[in-house]
């Protein structure tokens, strides 16, 4: 009787994850806990980092069948929304409903700053190819420079789904680190005189302009780059809900309940792609380094075009607003405001920086369309 009892206990222990788990899984659980710590304690993009980190944890629990690739598991079904390219455009719908494109319409030149900040995507693409990544993998790595999570997930899922976990974690981590990464680059590339520039107040934008804008953008971008249409059209549909003022209930749902539910599904299922065998490779390290490179170059591209605009306008444009062209709404705009106020405490750049910031969202969606149309 006693031996039977001890044998049963021994069998249970031997069958448990404690014994059968591999060291790589334990390491990934430590990584997941570290990410949870960053999200909860340091508040680094907690809305996305927390579900992603928990997804990483789930994917690496031995024999729990909770990774995104384990058929019949819960997360597998949630992952279908990523695999089929449903969640990122829906997230864009919510973002569109939350975004005011007024500063961009008031100052259309800020679209150029949103274009310049995409420099990081394409230069990193070259760097990744030089390091031996395939063109598809290089495209997925380069899109980290767009600093736009849903776009990064959408492109990676289409070009290199096996890198999804690493790229999503790198993209969201760098977006959270915007206030740390960007200021040194901005200060390095500008003089104090340039940072002190006070810009003219933006004109008020009429409701009609705000309603026409999403329709124009959808038509233009979708005609130009059909591959970018899912992202751009949903972004603009959300914005039309907001600006039309006739579907307030739908607009509120898109801004709150819908985007929150999709964020949970997207975050957990993307995190759950980071199984130890996919994540603990030298390639992940390469992705993290190249992602930082992409992000820094994007910031530099925006600031440098800002400097060109400063010279061309005779000092009317503060080059700091260029760094906001890397999307990461609204954090990148807040960084422009903060660095501007350090140089001139009476300067308020936030609304001026919001123009390039939302232009960056459109710019990164266009860049994604180019990568997809040339590499898919």
């Amino acid at each position, binding site marked *: 009787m006693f031996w039977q009892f001890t044998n049963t206990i021994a069998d249970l222990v031997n069958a448990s994850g404690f014994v059968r788990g591999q060291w790589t899984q334990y390491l990934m659980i430590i990584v997941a806990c570290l990410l949870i710590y960053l999200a909860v304690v340091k508040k680094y993009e907690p809305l996305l980092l927390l579900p992603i980190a928990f997804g990483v944890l789930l994917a690496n629990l031995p024999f729990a069948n909770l990774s995104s690739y384990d058929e019949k598991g819960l997360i597998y079904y949630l992952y279908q929304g990523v695999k089929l390219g449903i969640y990122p455009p829906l997230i864009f719908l919510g973002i569109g409903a939350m975004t005011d494109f007024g500063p*961009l*319409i008031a100052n*259309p*030149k800020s*679209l*150029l700053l*949103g*274009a310049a900040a*995409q*420099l990081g*995507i*394409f*230069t990193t*693409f*070259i760097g990744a*190819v*030089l390091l031996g990544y*395939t*063109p598809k993998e*290089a*495209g997925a790595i380069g899109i980290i420079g767009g600093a736009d999570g849903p776009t990064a997930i959408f492109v990676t899922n289409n070009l290199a789904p096996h890198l999804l976990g690493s790229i999503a974690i790198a993209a969201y981590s760098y977006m959270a680190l915007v206030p740390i990464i960007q200021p040194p680059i901005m200060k390095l590339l500008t003089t104090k005189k340039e940072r002190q520039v006070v810009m003219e107040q933006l004109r008020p934008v*009429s409701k*009609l*302009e705000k309603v*026409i*804008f999403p329709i*124009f*953008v959808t038509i*233009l*971008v979708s005609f*130009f*780059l059909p591959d970018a249409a899912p992202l751009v059209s949903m972004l603009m549909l959300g914005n039309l809900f907001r600006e039309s003022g006739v579907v307030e209930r739908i607009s509120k749902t898109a801004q709150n309940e819908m985007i929150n539910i999709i964020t949970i599904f997207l975050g957990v299922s993307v995190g759950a792609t980071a199984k130890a065998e996919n994540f603990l490779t030298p390639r992940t390290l390469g992705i993290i380094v190249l992602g930082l490179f992409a992000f820094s170059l994007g910031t530099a591209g925006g600031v440098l075009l800002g400097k060109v605009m400063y010279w061309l306008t005779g000092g009317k444009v503060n080059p700091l607003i260029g760094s906001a062209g890397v999307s990461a709404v609204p954090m990148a705009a807040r960084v422009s405001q903060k660095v501007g106020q350090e140089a001139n405490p009476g300067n308020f750049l936030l609304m001026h920086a919001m123009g390039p910031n939302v*232009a960056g969202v*459109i*710019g990164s969606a*266009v*860049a994604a369309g*180019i*990568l997809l149309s*040339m*590499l898919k």
Partner: protein
Amino acid sequence: MDNIPLALNLTFVGMTVVFIALILLSFIIFISTKFLAVKKNGRAKKNTTKDEASILEIDDDEDMNLDIPAFGRPDEELVSVMMAAIKAGMSPESQCSLRIKSFRRIEQSSPVWNRAGRLEQIAKKL
């Protein structure tokens, strides 16, 4: 290394297309803004004329026995009354600020019964 020409090509084409798309968008916004501004100005002008007609429609009837100040010279009191009347006629939530630049007498076009009703309303208030 075989992929380097592809990478360079994609980078060049990519940046060019991003710039072209966003410059085009910027240009469309600029044009539509100008177009809407012209249309708005035209409508504002039309509205001003309309408002002028309705606000400055002052009866030139000598039999009214109302103390109408003489026209032709600026009268601050009259301007204040006009402004008060316009504001009273607007919705309380309206944040629109107004400025009366000029006023002039126009030909009376209201029907007689309309004038009679208006006079009755004014008389009641007085």
